[in-house]
């Protein structure tokens, strides 16, 4: 067991005028996750600490937060990899309104997600069987199927901080997953949405999203491919 000093940014809009730092000392294993240390606080020190988490195994995407200044899943990062001089700093995601402590309002994020039609669009009759696809065609968009909608990418993006109307990396990743799917026919409509002034051209190729994604998705590359599809009018 090792001692960890946790600095957690707290804010309860019903009581606090400004965010403040909650400081807690906990004992955890170096191989525990950061989430375990936060649980230690919530369960044994201060039950009023608010956070989202569900699966605790990097699948549901609900516990993205800023750990030592970078967007990470708390259930994904080990104490020994994050501890710096005995301390770990935890803050809510940037660019979304804080509802309480580590919980931010995800609605604008999901509104952007819905805006790119995140479902298969194809009005032709598939016949009595499923729509078939070659392994190569399936591989074309494999990377972007891995997204768990945690918002780590979108809330690491300077363009999104500056302008909440920007659809953001996650929505573009989700659009990429369908635009480059050979069974889908909605590419033109999605490229229309992503080609407008709050679409892909707000991307400044900063690579924060690629660096933040807990699923290792090549986010900036996916955005680049969508940019090219819009610029050339060709989906390849």
């Amino acid at each position: 067991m090792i001692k960890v000093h946790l600095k957690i940014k707290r804010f309860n809009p019903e009581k606090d005028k400004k965010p403040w730092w909650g400081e807690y000392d906990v004992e955890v294993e170096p191989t525990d996750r950061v989430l375990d240390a936060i649980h230690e606080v919530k369960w044994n020190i201060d039950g009023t600490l608010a956070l989202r988490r569900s699966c605790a195994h990097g699948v549901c995407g609900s516990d993205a937060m800023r750990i030592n200044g970078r967007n990470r899943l708390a259930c994904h990062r080990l104490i020994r990899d994050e501890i710096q001089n005995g301390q770990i700093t935890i803050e809510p995601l940037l660019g979304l309104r804080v509802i309480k402590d580590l919980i931010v309002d995800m609605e604008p994020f999901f509104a952007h997600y819905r805006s790119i039609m995140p479902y298969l669009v194809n009005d032709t009759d598939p016949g009595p069987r499923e729509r078939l696809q070659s392994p190569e065609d399936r591989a074309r968009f494999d990377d972007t199927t891995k997204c768990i909608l945690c918002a780590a990418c979108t809330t690491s993006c300077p363009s999104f901080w500056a302008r909440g109307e920007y659809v953001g990396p996650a929505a573009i990743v989700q659009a990429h997953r369908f635009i480059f799917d050979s069974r889908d026919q909605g590419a033109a409509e999605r490229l229309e949405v992503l080609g407008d002034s709050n679409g892909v051209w707000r991307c400044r190729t900063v690579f924060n999203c690629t660096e933040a994604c807990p699923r290792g998705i090549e986010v900036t590359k996916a955005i680049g491919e969508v940019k090219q599809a819009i610029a050339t009018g060709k989906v390849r």
Partner: protein
Amino acid sequence: MSALISTVRASLSYRGREGHWLWLLHRVSGLGVLLFLILHVAGMSSAFISIEIHDRLLEMYKTPLFSIGELALAFGLIFHAVNGTRIAILELKPELWQKQQLATRLAIIIVVLLAAPTIIIMALGSINAFFGPAAGH
């Protein structure tokens, strides 16, 4: 305005990697050069209004403060041009993204290689002008 402040605060507090800091420097250098360009053209245009004001401006350019500003301008231009080229190449070839760390380091090396001699030569020239045998002429 508060959106601007919160964006600046977020940009400075997010612990991104090289790409994040290069982006910040790219914007600052772009806006800095733009500001210079506006003042520059305004300063040159002053000749239309009064040669006297124009001459006084030109005298002002010979002060140490402006010499230091010139160094910042030279660095800003070189950085912006090299880094801008890096961004443009990555934009045009998304498949190169896996090499982005390398591209970042290369850009930094090229900036240093170009900026170091430029700044040294400019600084030596200024030091000579201010403190050398011909100083004051």
